[in-house]
């Protein structure tokens, strides 16, 4: 395992923060997990991976057998990059360690969007970093198809500590689909992922992330996004499978005029799942805009759905929408939408609603001849439907397909 050449100060800060708990989410004892894993062999052809591995990947949106619909692929298993390939000029896809060796300047991008001493998890990633992916669109380059990145946890009890860096240079457009998943067995594991996004002037990133965990896994992603003038960041997050404990609260900062950020999240918590999820956006430049939309369903698990928008510049606009559906009463949804404004000419709003399926709506559809369970399914499907602006049609379709496949599991 290679180690990033990080500046002394990052390391020092990390060391000082090693026991700093996160203000949110259950505290995880990092000593319960093993740190080292075998170096896994590189796969020239990931199609040769075992069937069950590929199946887990497919459920996380990673396709291997029709990869001409991808502009690039990178797969990290445990600590090893086992495959990485860019199929389009102007789009770079490689392991973070390799990228840091290739580009001296890249170290300037480490810990700029996420603070290294945010909590013990970021500190742990700094001190025990095991690769991650680097994806970059050169100035003006636009991905024809999404680039796919897969983080796979194979060894049981392992702590995976990845550091991802994603850069869209000026005027570029980068569509990424990330699938995080594990071997299909119920054994503990920990996924710590730091992701730093840099969206330069007039560039656009769409980031679609599907989490496909198993019931014993703990997950603590730490994500920061910096959006420059006229840049767009579009995030779509889907989790519909069980997870032991998941907490994340990505933070986007609009630092250039008219920067735009949208977060869409679809959360389903089965029994035994605990999720504390949300998105934060700081509108720090004139005319910046954001929309945060989440749909949460519990079928027995517990969800905290957060959202935070802060307006610090003139003419910014933000809207937060959080809707929850309680399908089984053992579960809870706690919506915490927050707004903060520091100027007069800003426009921030939110709406939150939690409820069960309205009997009146079920009856209405039954009047049209749908059986009760068909009516219920139609309402749940409708609830989960978030029309996503700006997503390429193919990606939008794939996302719908992923949601649909999981729907069948929990309904």
């Amino acid at each position, binding site marked *: 395992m290679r180690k990033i050449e990080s500046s002394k100060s990052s390391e020092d800060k990390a060391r000082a923060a090693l026991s700093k708990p996160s203000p949110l989410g259950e505290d995880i004892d990092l000593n319960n997990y093993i740190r080292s894993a075998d170096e896994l062999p590189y796969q020239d052809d990931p199609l040769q991976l075992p069937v069950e591995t590929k199946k887990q990947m497919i459920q996380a949106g990673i396709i291997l057998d029709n990869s001409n619909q991808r502009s690039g692929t990178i797969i990290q298993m445990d600590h090893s990059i086992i495959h990485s390939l860019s199929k389009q000029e102007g789009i770079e896809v490689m392991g973070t360690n390799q990228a840091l060796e290739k580009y001296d300047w890249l170290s300037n991008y480490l810990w700029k969007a996420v603070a290294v001493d945010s909590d013990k998890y970021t500190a742990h990633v700094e001190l025990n970093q095991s690769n991650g992916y680097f994806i970059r669109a050169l100035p003006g380059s636009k991905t024809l198809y999404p680039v796919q990145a897969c983080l796979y946890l194979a060894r049981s009890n392992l702590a995976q500590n990845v550091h991802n860096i994603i850069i869209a240079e000026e005027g570029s457009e980068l569509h990424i689909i990330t699938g995080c998943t594990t071997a299909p067995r119920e054994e503990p594991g920990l996924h710590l992922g730091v992701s730093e996004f840099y969206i330069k002037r007039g560039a656009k990133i769409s980031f679609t992330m599907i989490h496909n965990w198993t019931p014993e896994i703990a997950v603590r992603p730490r994500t920061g996004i910096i959006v420059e003038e006229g840049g767009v960041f579009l995030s779509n997050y889907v989790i519909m499978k069980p997870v032991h404990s998941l907490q994340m609260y990505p933070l986007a900062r609009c630092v250039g005029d008219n920067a735009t950020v949208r977060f869409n999240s679809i959360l389903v918590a089965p029994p035994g799942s605990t999720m504390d999820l949300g998105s934060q956006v700081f509108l720090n430049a004139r005319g910046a805009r954001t929309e945060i939309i989440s749909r949460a369903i519990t079928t027995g698990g517990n969800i905290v759905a957060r959202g935070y928008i802060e307006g610090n510049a003139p003419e910014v606009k933000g809207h937060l929408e959080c809707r929850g559906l309680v399908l089984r009463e053992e579960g809870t949804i706690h919506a915490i939408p927050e707004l903060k404004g520091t100027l007069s000419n800003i426009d921030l709003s939110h709406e939150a609603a939690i409820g069960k399926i*309205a009997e*009146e*709506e079920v*009856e*209405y*559809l*039954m*009047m*049209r*001849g*749908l*059986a*009760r369970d*068909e*009516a219920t399914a*139609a*309402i749940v*499907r*409708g*609830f*989960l*439907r978030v029309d996503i602006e700006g997503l390429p049609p193919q990606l939008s379709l794939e996302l719908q397909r992923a949601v649909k496949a999981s729907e069948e599991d929990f309904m």
Partner: protein
Amino acid sequence: MLEIKQLSVKVRDREILHGVNLNIKAGETHVLFGPNGSGKTTLLMTIMGLPKYRVTKGSIKFKGKDIVGLPIDERARLGIGASLQRPPAVRGVKTREILTACSREQMGRESIGRMAEKANLTDLMDREINYGFSGGEIKRSELLQLMAQGPDLALLDEPESGVDLVSIALIGQLINELLEKEHPIRNRRRAGLIITHTGHILDYVNARTGYVLFDGRIICEGDPREILETIKSKGYEECRKCAR
């Protein structure tokens, strides 16, 4: 087709309908008048089978079969359809999807599109059903759903209320199509029960029999136009006399 005998209905613990009798044969359209709160919607919802409306006495037969106790969807599949006065919005479910789901003969996209055009609802096909619809759009979308469903008995709850005059003409047209009014009388199979508070719809749709429902009782039955004239000139207050 529909035979209601001595029907009493409770909502929560209050009896709303008291011994209602009503008969509709295949091919006939009947009209139900009555002041606000008299129980018109209650009667319709009871025929449709909403559990909130509890039958405490009497019977409802449809096509000779006692349907009290059947769930809503089974009644729908037997051939009863209703357009609601205030249907709920169902977020995320599009008009087109409902039309496809409820169409009996699995109508294709094209024929659904043609029907939507007739109802002047093309722009609403990909909108969430009833969400942000205007009053007139709701009424037309309800009728459009019934046209897709093709019920043998259509129950229409105030299809014209809150709709401007131009739109009433269109609504009248849709109802006439739904009830096969273009067919010669002897060929008509479909029956209708139209609830109306104002009676405006009678300018467009012919009906055979009218009733006045007052305080949960049918207090008068006869020619719908004659009844409407009386209500227009003397108001529902006049009905109070008959109610005694």
